[in-house]
């Protein structure tokens, strides 16, 4: 990387981008640096951590507007003090969290970065400042350009301010962790909980050396929490915070999306001891011990079916994965051309 610039505000960022002609990599806390393909020489990093104010926090309206470089933990503290929360997983700066959307929803139909982003202010690679969406919980005015932030990994535009939807903190919550399950038992429990009329606030299914674990959080009124824990024989446990798999030396971690009914087929397509994690929202990670194993898994993925790509691995292999639908790829390429025609943001 050819240096780091740290603009103090959105106007400075716009000016910086306007004056740049070479490649730029946007950065929040930089925690995802090991997950993206390497930057070409001459790339400068623009770090947005100085854009870190809470512009407004309307707890009664369940909305707030924050700078994209604000750290999630700072916001969480402010929200907790007002009895509200941002109901999605993930850490780092809010801009980084939304741009990488590392986990999706922790529950099917539950809130994900995608559903919590009401609007944003941003800057294009040519320095143009723009707005999309609104600050209120409901608006269908214009095209939802802000949805393009999610999963864009900083390659379409820089978000400088985010308008977010919040939620009241639940009156009661209990974490559960049912471990030492066999595959069939884990799947039955996972599918039953995912299909509840009032689903858990978080749901995860993990396979590791010790067997299968189904864990998560039941939230709501105290009587509902107690009744759900009882009805499904859920055992209280510590909060489930390991939302990602770690890479083993020489190995790779793949991530993707899969339907619960296809998890057995997915596990059959991988070595029997491969660590595996799936969130209630459908996002999974699987740990494979070598690039050859990953390639075999990716080749088998369409038969599962599931979509997947390499999250952690040698820099040149990151983000390789199952082919994206050609029509979808074409639109994605057109969007890149439309918003960043010179390919500045990498």
């Amino acid at each position, binding site marked *: 990387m050819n240096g780091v610039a740290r603009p103090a505000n959105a106007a400075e960022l716009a000016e910086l981008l306007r004056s740049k002609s070479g490649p730029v990599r946007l950065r929040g806390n930089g925690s995802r640096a090991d997950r993206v393909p390497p930057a070409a020489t001459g790339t400068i990093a623009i770090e947005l951590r100085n854009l870190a104010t809470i512009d407004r926090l309307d707890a*009664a309206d369940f909305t707030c507007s924050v700078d994209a470089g604000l750290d999630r933990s700072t916001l969480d503290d402010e929200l907790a003090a007002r009895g509200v929360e941002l109901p999605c997983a993930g850490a780092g700066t809010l801009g980084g969290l939304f741009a990488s959307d590392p986990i999706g929803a922790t529950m099917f139909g539950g809130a994900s970065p995608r559903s919590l982003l009401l609007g944003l202010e941003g800057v294009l690679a040519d320095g143009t400042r723009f707005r999309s969406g609104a600050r209120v919980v409901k608006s269908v005015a214009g095209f939802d350009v802000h949805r393009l932030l999610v*999963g864009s990994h900083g390659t379409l535009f820089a978000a400088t301010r985010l308008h977010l939807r919040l939620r009241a903190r639940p009156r009661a919550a209990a974490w559960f962790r049912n471990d030492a399950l066999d595959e069939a038992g884990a799947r039955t429990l996972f599918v039953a909980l995912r299909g509840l009329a009032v689903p858990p606030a978080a749901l995860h299914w993990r396979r590791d050396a010790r067997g299968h674990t189904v864990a998560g959080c039941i939230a709501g009124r105290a009587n509902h929490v107690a*009744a759900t824990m009882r009805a499904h024989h859920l055992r209280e446990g510590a909060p489930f915070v390991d939302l990602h798999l770690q890479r083993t030396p020489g190995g790779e971690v793949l991530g993707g*999306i899969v339907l619960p009914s296809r998890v057995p087929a997915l596990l059959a397509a991988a070595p029997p001891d491969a660590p595996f994690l799936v969130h209630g929202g459908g996002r999974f990670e699987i740990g494979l011990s070598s690039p050859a194993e990953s390639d075999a898994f990716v080749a088998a993925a369409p038969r599962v079916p599931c979509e997947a790509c390499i999250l952690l691995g040698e820099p040149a292999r990151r983000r390789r994965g199952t082919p994206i639908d050609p029509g979808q790829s074409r639109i994605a390429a057109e969007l890149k051309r439309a918003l960043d025609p010179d390919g500045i943001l990498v």
Partner: protein
Amino acid sequence: MAMLARRMRPLERSLVRLLGRERVLHSPDALLAWECDGFTVHRRRPRAVVLPESTDEVQAVVRALHDASVPFVPRGAGTCLSGGPTANADAVVVDLARMRKVLQISTEDLFAVVQPGVVNLDLTAAVHHLGLHYAPDPSSQSVCTIGGNFAENSGGPHCFKYGMTVDHVLGALVVLPDGSLARLGDAAGARAPHGLDLTGLFCGSEGTFAIATEITVRLCRDQEAVRTLLASFPTMAAACRTVSDVVAAGLLPAALEILDQATIRAVEASVYRAGYPADAAAVLLVELDGPTEVVAEEAAEVMAVFARHGALHREEASSPADRKRLWKGRKGAFGAMGRLNTDLYVLDGVVPRTRLEEALERIAAIGRKHGVVLTNVFHAGDGNLHPNISFDGRDADQTARTIAAGREILQLCVDLGGSVTGEHGIGSEKLEHVAMMYGPADLDVMARVRRAWNPRDLCNPGKVLPQRSSCAEVAKWPQMVARVLDEEHG
């Protein structure tokens, strides 16, 4: 037949070759039913209407139109309230109402794949016996289609708890404006980790990106218990404060709907009569759903909040039939108000929920200033207002005052930190109003995004974004708005 064929233009002839004569309408009389949607001020007869029945047929039709450089407009049931499916620029309407098959239902993975012409309520009817439903419920749900809902990102009374259409659409197969296909998202998730959220971007694009021919949506499990409560209040302010307190208490009702006095009276005088107290200044409907014991506790809490705010009358639906009765007035409100005059202008602004009371006071003042008949029925939980103006569209003065009042109301919503539309879209109706929220740079970025999908602007031209310079065919309504603006600014 031979004579008819001779009168047809070459494009119509090739469309007939693709679909057959019965599914290509082009005589002026046959086109009458397609000349507008629920926004009746903007009328324009399309060049032709085609009625495809499969993705292949949509592709073939779109290819022919693309090759002939003829614009086209996707259409569902035509219940849109902002002119979205109304033809501009001699366009051909691609009517998707015949594509009404539910293609797949998964009870384990909880999704359905449907063709775009499936009627919203028919999807719930198709999965009802499985204890499932499709959550977004626009008041037009017995008629409007999933394709239209997807294109508008429609809401409805139950969206306060369950979210808008975008929160329920997982993926789609779309025919791009050159006739090629793109598959967005997947039943397993709207976005793969190495993809963008194109499903989310498409949702709400008002038929200007492409034509959706298959849509994958999430199904929800039916709740164990549903309780519907109603209270009437001596003032609108008391009803609004009740809503705030219900939400502040951490309750999450499925729906929180308010009707004002004029609406109550219109409803009670119509076939949608629901037995609402006609002397009340406002009626608040609260629906709670969830496990039986939870809903029981919540109902008691809500009743207590009603009492605290001086409710004149409180009741709870005693049976499913009674629940239907309480909803009948709310769901039929637009129909009831439509009878007050020849035309009804349904506005759709949003304000932060905590500003509802102030917004309604100022809206009433705007109504008085312009001398228009104004009623309010709205999704109070989301701050999504529907001020309705009854007017006689044949009277130029009334129409001008209606437009001026509507414009001022939407400006007020923006000034209070809200939006010019919560669920009905921009269409052709709000081409001028959209600039209240966005500046030229914002609109330019949106235009770039649309061009990525629809580079030649063949798919539903003249909608969503004002196109002063390039649009050859500007709809009648924006022209009227422009005239009012010119007059206002001297």
